[in-house]
């Protein structure tokens, strides 16, 4: 699992991020998130706010974004809650990056279904491009992280890059996607299997065949 310790609290970090504030558009979204909860329960909005803060940091640094300590403190202050409670949340979910990441955060699933379907090859592909787990590549483009199941087992193996999932991958398909991203293009998200739309059965239907056109009650056929 990735290192969940926050980046060290150094004077440079304070200098860079000490004055962090939501921009107008982010503040609007943050206040909207807070307004979803009853008055006095603004703390409930800690997760969307951390996400927004991370995105804004990402925009400012041209990366996926991460959460420096001063930004975490800003969020705590924004919600009037103790910093340690915000840090607890931020360090719990791996969607929040505690360390700087590259422009594209390549999260390769290594859990059993993906592993059986060839995630090892995906790691190889990534490594060949100079990525290594937990580090930002030299060109600042990539950060590789091995993650646990992301719930796309039907279309394994999969990789999550920033906000998009890429499924049904082979090393070649991943290469194509990474090339496109490096060029600044936006490849098609979702399954990469030609002819497949989402996570429907890859070939012919093998189950629930009677349900293709209309609802069907199977219960009487159970033995």
């Amino acid at each position, binding site marked *: *699992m990735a290192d*969940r*310790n926050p980046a060290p*609290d150094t004077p440079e970090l304070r200098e860079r991020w000490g004055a962090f504030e939501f921009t107008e558009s982010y503040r609007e979204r943050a206040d909207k998130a807070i307004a979803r909860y009853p008055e006095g329960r603004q703390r409930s909005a800690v997760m969307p706010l951390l996400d927004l803060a991370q995105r804004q940091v990402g925009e400012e640094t041209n990366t996926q974004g991460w959460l420096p*300590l001063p930004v975490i403190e800003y969020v705590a202050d924004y919600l009037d809650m*103790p*910093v*340690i*409670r915000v*840090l*607890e949340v931020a*360090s*719990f979910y791996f969607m929040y990056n505690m360390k700087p990441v590259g422009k594209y955060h390549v999260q390769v699933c290594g859990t059993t279904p993906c592993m059986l379907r060839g995630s090892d090859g995906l790691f190889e592909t990534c490594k060949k491009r100079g990525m290594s787990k937990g580090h930002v590549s030299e060109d600042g483009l990539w950060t590789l992280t091995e993650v646990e199941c992301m719930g796309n087992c039907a279309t394994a193996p999969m990789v999550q890059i920033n906000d998009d999932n890429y499924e049904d991958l082979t090393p070649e398909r991943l290469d194509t996607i990474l090339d496109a991203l490096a060029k600044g293009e936006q490849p098609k998200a979702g399954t990469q299997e030609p002819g497949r739309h989402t996570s429907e059965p890859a070939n012919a239907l093998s189950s629930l065949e009677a349900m293709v056109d209309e609802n069907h009650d199977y219960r009487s056929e159970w033995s």
Partner: protein
Amino acid sequence: MPKVTVDGQELEVPEGATVLQACELAGKEIPRFCYHERLSIAGNCRMCLVEVKPGPPKPQASCALPATEGQEIRTDSEMVKTAREGVMEFLLINHPLDCPICDQGGECDLQDQSVAYGRGATRYEENKRAVTEKYMGPLIKTVMTRCIHCTRCVRFSEEIAGVDEIGAVGRGEDMQITTYLEQAAEHELSANVIDLCPVGALTSRPYAFEARPWELKKTLSIDVSDAVGANIRLDSRGREVMRALPRVNDAVNEEWLSDKGRYMVDGLSKRRLDKVFMRKRGKLQPATWDEAFKAIAKAKPGKAIAAVAGDMVDCETMFAAKSLLKACGSKLIEGRQTGMDYDVSNLAAVNFNSTFEGLEHAGAILIVGSHIRWEAPLVNVRIRKAVKRGAKVYVVGPYWDTTYPAEFLGEDLGVLNKLPKEVADAFKNADRGAVIVGGGALKSAHGKAMALASDWGADFNVLHFSAARMGGLMLGFAQKGGMADIVKAKPKVLISLGADEMDYEPFADTLKVYIGHHGDKGAHSADIILPAASYAEKDGTYVNTEGRVQFAEKAVFAPGDAREDWTILRALADALKVEVGFDNFAQLQSAMIAEVPALGEEGLADYGALPKADATAKAEGTMSAYPIKDFYLTNPIARASEVMQRCSSELLHGGELAEAAE
């Protein structure tokens, strides 16, 4: 009242009880780590598994399961036994086997429960997780590798202390308990997490590697660092008090203790007066008891003798001094060293009448001139509880961090004369209200506060902060004009019973005899020093601010030539050739009880009804600061204590961490 069956035994349990509580009522022991009676339920250690029917066919965590009608609970089945063994095995996967070098050894929940409920041997060969130590301040030592993630400390700091200092960062096996950026835990009750920690992850820093629990003699005592009178246990080895721990007393301290009461004990062996000293040619020189007594007799005080009681003396000492003065024909006794002169004709008017337990049920609380967190941290815990039940709190006085929502009405005490309407409304709407007047506001706001309380039908409370105060007042240690009367009487001899906060300047021509235990302010000004015993070195009776009479026992002997205070006063009676009427402690105590019967009975003293409040009373003056300037250094023992000095410099004055230099 649901009826449940525990191991075949049928019993009724109170509404809202959990299965764990039901089992306890049935006399069954349920092992647990995360569950604690005074904290919220977390249900994350899984040690309290029991078998419950009806329900899923698997063991269930009894601490988080409500007891319901007709449940059949088994704590002795094979399933429960294997479940406990399994949980224990999991807990021990990452727990180091360093009991021989762990300070918790001998009083460790995990140690005890693994003996009682664990498997005999380990099946794991893998490496254990290691966690870096976290800095949590001068009082709490951490060995986080031992942490089993029960989160009791997190819940304590959030719920009881109310400061959200400690949190659990990370998840799963990587979860770590820490303060934000490893800042020191600063709350006055922070060290209670050491008692709460079921393993040796949080241990006492000053007491690290000092002693094993089984080597210690345990003595039941009373904390004298404030006027709450927390029930404590002094653990001593040989002649040294090694540590103080809280005892459970729901009426007083529940099971908490302030950091000062807990850690000032190292001051008991520092800066002690262990010899008789006399001032010769302006300098204090060692002397003998005989010389000292002769010098006092030579002063021929006659009736011109006065006694001032310090903040930490017991009732017996004060009574012995009073008897001595009475035999000499003097009534010049006073305990309010700093010169306060409130009316004490009715003690109910200077008592904490709500009682601490009752304060929890107040719906509206008005605090007048009291920094409760520093003057009585354990009372602040009660107010927090009241606030959680919906109480509204108003404070008159300079701002302090209350840890609960409170409205500050300003530093001007005159605001009491024209309170905002919402305050009166809050009190009228509450079933029970409480007005608390702190020592700092007694002079200017006592009458008005009492009038307000009687107007609203609220309880009137005075919060003292010296342990000897209520006892002293019961024994009559109060002049009408306070210390000014003593000064005016120009006594030839002034007996100071450990009075370190008073001003000795007006007594320049008086022979000042200091009977006390620490070389502090009083000893510096004294002409004769008679070394006496501290609270740990004598039996004694103390009365807390709510008028609760409590006995403390002697834990160790006083060092050097120091004697118990009453014996010194008894010997002084011989030197002055008067009769005091007692020759041993039992006689002294029975004489005292004969005079003030309430002191003979543990529990709340009855002071009768409050006097009729003066409806025309006005409060005036501004309160720019509270009397306590430094929470950790309020009494001579604490001032002598290195731990308290370090707390003061590091936590209050932002000093450099002493550890950084090591």
